[in-house]
């Protein structure tokens, strides 16, 4: 044993070279994987997603979110869900708003617990998670007589026109999602006709808030 260390025989030298080669290989493989992941992640096409309030600056959000799950866990209304592989490789495991499960009351708890400020402190008056949009399955548009979203909206962002169809005021809507949560359209036949509700909060395409 000690002899080997002082005067390494051929086997030891060969094994040592093998070891070095293996270390070199796994080190370079690791570096390549890391750089490759970064490159693929940056280049991959990104779907606009609905983030919890304070996470609307997508680039700075993605730079800071370490996918720790605290915001999702703390959310009292369960509106914060987890993005999956289907939402994008980069976005998997990040928090997204699931308005079928809840709505946002801007309680600020998610911002409070975020350890990296991926969710930044927001102004309750100006923050916009997204904007509600009517879809083809809206009951009022198709059959009339439904005004649940109009009644539910706390921010008076939904008005009714002369035919009692909802009209959304994009300035007043902050994307809290209570309309989508409460919308009864397609709720009871979720698998047969898709899951789209009659009103949906959609991400803002242009950056409205700074």
């Amino acid at each position, binding site marked *: 044993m000690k002899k080997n*260390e002082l005067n390494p025989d051929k*086997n030891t030298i060969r094994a040592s070279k093998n070891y070095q080669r293996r270390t070199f290989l796994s080190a370079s*493989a690791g570096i390549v994987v890391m750089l490759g992941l970064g490159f693929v992640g940056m280049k991959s096409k990104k779907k606009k997603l609905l983030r919890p309030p304070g996470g609307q600056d997508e680039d700075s959000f993605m*730079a800071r979110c*370490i996918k720790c799950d*605290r915001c999702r866990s*703390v959310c009292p209304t369960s509106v914060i869900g987890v993005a999956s*592989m289907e939402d994008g490789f980069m976005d998997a495991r990040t928090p997204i708003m699931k308005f079928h499960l809840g709505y946002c009351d801007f309680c600020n*708890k998610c911002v409070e617990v975020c350890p990296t400020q991926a969710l930044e402190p927001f102004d309750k008056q100006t923050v916009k998670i997204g904007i509600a949009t009517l879809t083809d399955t809206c009951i009022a548009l198709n059959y009339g007589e439904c005004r649940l979203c109009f009644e539910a909206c706390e921010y008076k962002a939904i008005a009714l026109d002369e035919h009692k169809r909802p009209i959304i005021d994009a300035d007043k809507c902050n994307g809290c999602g209570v309309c989508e949560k409460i919308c009864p359209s397609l709720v009871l036949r979720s698998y047969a006709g898709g899951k789209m509700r009659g009103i949906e909060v959609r991400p803002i395409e242009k950056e409205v808030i700074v």
Partner: protein
Amino acid sequence: MKKMKTSTLRTLTILAFVLLVVVGLAFHTGTGTISAFGYKTISAICPLGSIEAQLASKTFLPQVLISLAVFVLITTLLGRIFCAWACPVPLFRKWFPKKSAKVNAGEKSSALEQSVEHTHENTVSKTSGTVDSSYYVLGGALASTFIFGFPVFCLICPVGLTFAVLIGVWRLIQFNEPTWSLLIFPLILILELVFYRYSCRKFCPLGALISLVSRLNIFVRPKIDQTKCMQTSKGIECKLCKSVCNEAIDLHEKAASSAQLSRCTKCRDCADVCPMGAIKFPFFRKKNDKE
């Protein structure tokens, strides 16, 4: 008996952390996962994650300084204790056995012979002076994070993925949310453990980061009692402690350097496997132990 005790204890502490995540899933406690456990505004954020977040956003986040300081303090006191006692990966590392050393408690004698056969391989490892590849992976991860502007390693972090699977299964049951993630995340985990058979040592950049800080650690380091050890006292070649060590630390080597011992995760596998009970983890080093 004793071996069972430490490894069972370790499994229990790891499961305790998993339980904390489950509590966070069941109630709205906001405890989070091991990536950033916390209560209200206080959080024990993953040191690698916090560094990545700052590099990626090119901003300085003062609030993570406290948890970084606590991390340095704990690591100085107890070394890489996280890797053996809190990280969930060792739980399923058992399913991906090592190539050379399959040591079972009941087969000590055969394992002993086996370990003698592998003397060559054993002599080699650290004498060559190569640095473990995980440090390069750490460098690559940080560089990539800085260049591409998002925490790259978090994407495939085995700790994060493990809890992501747990959360995914939970949400599948609670909210009926089927997703490909539930297949892809475990697949990435398996790939990592298969391609880097010793992925904790050769791949994990978090382990590498903790090891770097753990060089400050001087307490609870494993120590061989030279009078009890078969190899040092009787000259019988025995490498059980090294063959069982996930970090391939050879405690016999005189030059079991500080750098090498800083990779010790305090899992106590070596102390449990040693037939002579020669390995101890004293909190303080005796003065004459210093090289």
